[in-house]
């Protein structure tokens, strides 16, 4: 397995060879920040393009075709347009909060994005309570959405924001429980450590039935967490026109739009990391030749392949199911997912205590 820390360490050494350590760390931080932002933007563009093509394929259509070969640079055109579109400020809106909201959403999204271990040695934020930090960071997004709905001075926005508040806070619980199930199995909160533990088999396979149940719960709750159909109530096109971002135009709307897609990727990335081994190649204990062959495929390829597979799964959900109603969403969460998640956690504890897992 190629370890990226060799490169990063080398860069670090080069930098401290001609500047003080403090400055070197500062330069590295800036560079990494820029890299993350860039990757964030590129991923958003890839995701939007993928969404359009995937939904077109489900709907017997072609999707974007004219701009660039097979429409590949369609999204760039959208970005250019979005960047120079007028940003409307609304009378009677709370101007400060109104302008702040999209940035909170994007900030939360970038913070949790930087927690994802992409390859061995390519972890930006990696410390012993990594998962905990990520869950905390991603929940800041709710504040942004609530603010957006509240400050817009629009009744649709307000209803959308209230819906999203109820929905996202509820589903945070299920996400936490399903991740906790795996944490019990690994006894660590550090993301890189979690990935390392999956060297002899992904947790989805190692963790018996509880891990699988946790995976399903995680997919459902994760989908709800990023407000995508069938849980897209906060923006429910046919009910609330555009939900919490009804009044946003131009790039402010663009930020919401981008955050939605990258959040989807983050959810998929976490699922890939926790349940499907992150950048860890597919290893089957006992088949050494096979394992070695798998190791030749670089880790980030594994990571992105797994993440995009899950993204594709979630898109499949979105384009197949009708939307739920608000009471049904809450019923699903509080009456089904949370109890199942709790029992599942207990089951996992029993399995771990009696060492029944592989």
């Amino acid at each position, binding site marked *: 397995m190629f370890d990226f820390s060799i490169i990063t360490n080398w860069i670090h050494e080069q930098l401290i060879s001609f500047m003080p350590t403090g400055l070197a760390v500062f330069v590295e931080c800036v560079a990494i920040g820029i890299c993350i932002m860039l990757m964030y933007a590129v991923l958003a563009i890839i995701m939007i393009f993928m969404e359009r093509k995937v939904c*077109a394929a489900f709907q017997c259509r072609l999707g*974007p*075709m004219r701009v660039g070969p097979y429409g590949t640079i369609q999204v760039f055109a*959208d970005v250019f347009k979005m960047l120079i*579109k007028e940003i*409307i400020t609304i009378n009677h809106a709370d101007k400060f909060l109104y302008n702040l909201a999209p940035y909170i959403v994007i900030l939360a999204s970038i913070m949790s994005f930087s927690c994802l271990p992409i390859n061995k040695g390519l972890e930006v934020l990696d410390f012993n309570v990594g998962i905990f930090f990520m869950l905390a960071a991603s929940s800041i997004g709710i504040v942004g959405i609530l603010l957006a709905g509240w400050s817009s001075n629009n009744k649709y926005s307000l209803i959308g924001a209230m819906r999203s508040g109820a929905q996202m806070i509820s589903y945070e619980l299920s996400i936490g429980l399903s991740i906790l199930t795996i944490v019990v199995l690994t006894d660590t909160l550090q993301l890189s450590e979690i990935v390392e533990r999956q060297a002899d088999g992904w947790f989805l396979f190692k963790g018996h039935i509880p891990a699988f149940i946790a995976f399903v719960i995680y997919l459902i709750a994760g989908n709800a967490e990023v407000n995508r159909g069938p849980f897209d109530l906060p923006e429910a096109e046919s009910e609330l026109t555009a939900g919490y971002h009804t009044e946003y*135009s131009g790039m402010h*709307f663009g930020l919401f739009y981008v955050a939605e897609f990258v959040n989807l990727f983050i959810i998929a990335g976490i699922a890939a990391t926790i349940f499907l081994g992150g950048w860890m190649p597919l290893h089957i204990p006992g088949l050494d030749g096979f394992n070695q062959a798998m190791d030749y495929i670089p880790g980030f390829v594994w990571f992105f392949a797994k993440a995009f597979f899950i993204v594709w799964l979630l898109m499949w959900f979105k384009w197949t199911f009708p939307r739920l109603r608000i009471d049904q969403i809450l019923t699903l969460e509080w009456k089904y997912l949370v109890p199942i998640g709790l029992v599942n956690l207990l089951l996992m504890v029993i399995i771990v205590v009696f060492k029944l897992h592989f």
Partner: protein
Amino acid sequence: MEIKKPHIKSIPYEDFKNNEYLEQMVQELNANGGKVWLGCLDDLINWGRSNSLWPLTFATSCCGIEFMAVGAARYDFARFGFEVARASPRQADLIMVAGTITHKMAPVLKRLYDQMADPKYVIAVGGCAISGGPFKKSYHVVNGVDRILPVDVYIPGCPPRPEALLYGMIQLQRKVKLEKFFGGVNRKEEEPQKAK
């Protein structure tokens, strides 16, 4: 002066019927000249704008069904990048006035247009939106949406076929490709009165 020709993929310039009008428009826009680098930037911006015209989901009658048909599988305007139909006027670039506009609807339509963020375009779809169509003599029908909004493209028909709608949208793309973001004046409406 050489006219900048808008390029539309797989349709040659000569195949369009309204080229004189476009050329005249370019000449008017370029009357004062402009800087080369600004022109290049303009091209980039116009490329973005013209390929990403998001329509507002707005329809009043029959033409709206054809508008939906254009979005559906057989005609699929997603190919041109039109598919992100936004329900909120703030996020839309283009309003397709599909259907009859009545006296009661006119102020609502005007408000919708005002709510859209610049740059915004209007396409009048079908006989009713162009002139009142079969209901021209009615007491409650606005004879042509251009009495209320500045219209960019007219698509005749009752209702226009989906192909006609696509053609109309491509015409709008051509028009957008010639606009000037820097230097030129694109205002289609009169200068609004200063708010009191």
